[in-house]
């Protein structure tokens, strides 16, 4: 069973036939080639697949592509400038907020959402925000530092 779905992905209009059971994560990765969205559990726990749907973070493995009719989806590719890195990405690099990098796109998506709503998060707020994303490599310490650094940079930059 397939359905026609129309949505916006990283600012571009997309129109595709999708099987009703196609998860948004598979749709993004396989149909659109946006492999920056990773899949770590496919049961909604690890957060690796996190993308923004209409500005809110959502787990792409728990959404069906067909549910996203009319939605605006933003993936890590959409949060990456055409040249160079965003200040948030740069903070992850500078703070060593990643090792294998598999959780990183999901972490950056939730950190982006946090900073959009809260320009001066406390450490506890940062931990709360990334608390639904698993990282098996870093023990989270440097990820927290990276988000805090990005927040400071944003404030300094006005």
């Amino acid at each position, binding site marked *: 069973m397939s359905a026609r779905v129309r949505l916006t992905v990283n600012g571009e209009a997309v129109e595709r036939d999708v099987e009703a059971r196609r998860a948004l994560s598979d749709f993004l990765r396989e149909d659109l080639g946006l492999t920056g969205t990773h*899949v*770590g559990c496919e049961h909604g726990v690890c957060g690796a697949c996190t993308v923004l749907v209409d500005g809110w973070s959502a787990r792409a493995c728990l959404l069906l592509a067909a549910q996203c009719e009319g939605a605006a989806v933003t993936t890590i*590719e959409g949060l990456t400038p055409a040249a160079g890195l965003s200040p948030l990405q740069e903070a992850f690099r500078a703070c060593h907020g990643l090792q*294998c990098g598999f959780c990183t796109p999901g972490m950056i998506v939730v950190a982006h959402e946090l900073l959009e709503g809260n320009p001066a998060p406390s450490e506890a707020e940062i931990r709360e925000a990334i608390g639904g994303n698993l990282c098996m490599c870093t023990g989270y310490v440097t*990820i927290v530092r990276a988000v805090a650094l990005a927040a400071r940079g944003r404030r300094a930059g006005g």
Partner: protein
Amino acid sequence: MTPAGEPGGWVGRAYPLKEAARLVAGRGRFLDDLAPARLLHVAMLRSPHAHARIVALDVTAAAALPGVAAILTGAQAAALSKPIRPLIPTAVPIGDWCLAADRARFVGEPIVAVAAVDRATAEDAAEAIRVTWEVLPAAVDAEAGARGEGPLLYPELGSNVVWHDTLTYGDVDAAFAAADGVLRERFEMQRYASTPLETFGCIAAYDAGTDAYTFWSNDQRPGLTMSILAESLGVPQSRLRLTCPDIGGGFGNKRRPAWLLVCALLAKRTGRSVKFVEDRRESLTALMHAAGGVMEVALAYRADGTLLGLSVRDVTDEGKNLVSPTQHNLIKLGNIANGYRIPAIRYEAWSVLTNKCPTGANRGIGKPFMCFAIERSMALLARRLGLDPAELRLRNYVGVDEMPYRTPTGAEYDSGDYHATLRAALARFRYAERRREQVEGRGRGRLLGIGVATSVEPAGTNLASYEIITGRRAASGSAEAAMVRIEPDGRVRAAIGDPPSGQGYETVVAQIVADELGVAPDEVDVARGFDSATTPWLYLSGNYSNKFSVTDTGAVVGAARRVRDKLVRLAAHRLEADPVDLELRDGAVRVRGVPGRALTLGELARTAYADVLGLPPGEQPGLEARHAHQNPLARPMDAARRVPSQLVFANAAHCCLVEVDPGTGGVRILAYVVVHDCGRELNPLIVEGMVHGSTAHGIGAALLEEFRYDEHGQLLTSTFMDYLKPTALDVPDIDVGRLEHPSPVTPLGAKGVGEGGAIPGPAAVANAVEDALAPYGVTVRALPLTPETVWRWLAASRGA
């Protein structure tokens, strides 16, 4: 070799990951991102039973589904391939094929593989396969197996015990006879795993024209995998190519040659590329667990706390592991004495098969359990003797003046000041002050506990240690290979046979090469991952046993120096200078003190590759060198069965403060301090990250993680909803301090760092929780310390 650090001094700097630029942008290339044309996807039909005979198998309906390209049963796989070679030969040879043919021996063991146009179709087909099972009783208790009881996995072996032996080092009986006391305890370790966020996967393609296979996999140990693939497929290694892309975490778990074989057989059958990627449930159920087990410890001591002897009985629950059993036993010989002077040691070991997921390498392999048993025992002994636990340790450490120190089992501690490490950790933790706060807190009803645990962390496995078991030597030592090349345009490129899975080798290798060749790390391109066709590699190659710092670095330095030496010879010839007057700096070979008399790497590369008449007489064209290095501490087993199972030794001290919620039994870590000494730090950013991550693994094992099986061998924790991993809300802001006692035996003075937190972490947290529960008289003998476990202790004690 002379220490690096000249001329750029890049080694030792906190240089941010070169890899980060692609990874933070989602531009990594992980296994599942690869999609060759006309790709087929595999789903596996897996056993729902821990132990069952396949009476009948009907794939007709599945094969008829549209989109299904091929179905491979266990019986077909056994006809088309040879069994996977075991590391430890069994008494009677057992065929262990890539799919189970007649019997399944653990829940999740695959018996049929389906290749279809997409994964969903393959899963539909797998569901349409009809299996008639005869369910057999399951062996779930390794101790029963050690006693010769319970159902047999392989009746032809007559036992589930793969190995049982007693190794005795020194006069253990005399030590116990002379002791003022003996502490006897029994500890258990649960099954857990590091569960890299990216699951295991592979792609195989077959070329009928040349009878050759190409593989892509996030396999951590490609050297060994190449030999297994060649043997099982019956083709020479020259007709195999294995490539590892970016690997999303490994920690030892990322290996399963069987799945590569399944894809290879399906690729040959269909003539198409075939991909298999585990889903999370498959990964948790059937990839690899750290072995659980039971350990009985007897520690003989003098009244002043001096340790005299140690006797350990260690039963390892291997699951259905025919490929690498005994690994969890043998590796414990590396840290059985931990940092202590224990003159006499007896180690009695059982390696026992059970109807559970195969065990295998997992951050620290066996050493976290060994450390847990020793460090728990030290905490209990301190309590018994009325000594502060830190003081008891200080009385027993091997002294800095005793280095290098040979332990009774044959391990060589190359350098380190264990007293200083613990003292630094206590100071950083504000130990005395926190003890006072603890007393005050208790007065106000708070259950605060302080835990100390210290550890040695070996690196590099010496495979000669298997001689203890097999009586003969097959593989031995610890070695790695690397390549450094200056391209015809002058750009530097390097590759190494060890595919990283988050350790930042593209950065560290670039730092090392940069120092040797007088360029900046950004001017060195290090190959991503591994490619057997282009990367230099050995059977021993791979990303395992903490070996980068102690083995791989020698390969990189060696290759870079050969290229450097050649650059100097070329430049000396062309500049008509004495080689001793030349230096490599800022991308050129320069005559020291004579500005302008210099040749850039690009100019020298032109001579080497194009204008070859300009080469010195007898010099070969080209600017490329390969070098392999073996760690010099590895040696064969001696007549007393002493063998260094692992090599260079780092060390660490962990102190943590926890609070137990008396209402819920929940444990919160309020402070966590690590002081570690991994010799020279090649890149402090990476080192600190390793310590954080590794410690978080220890915390997870201590408080949350367990693969729990019921009495029928059913796995009860097979998703991240019930197999709990630590989140950012569980792991505290781990505070890391460091000492640097360089290793005298590694080329850059570095030691291993990847496993250091995972080894003492469980013991440190357990010691703290027990300390918090001191008013309740609880002894921690097993993990994880879940709220339920702790709450039951509190309730039982209140009820009593």
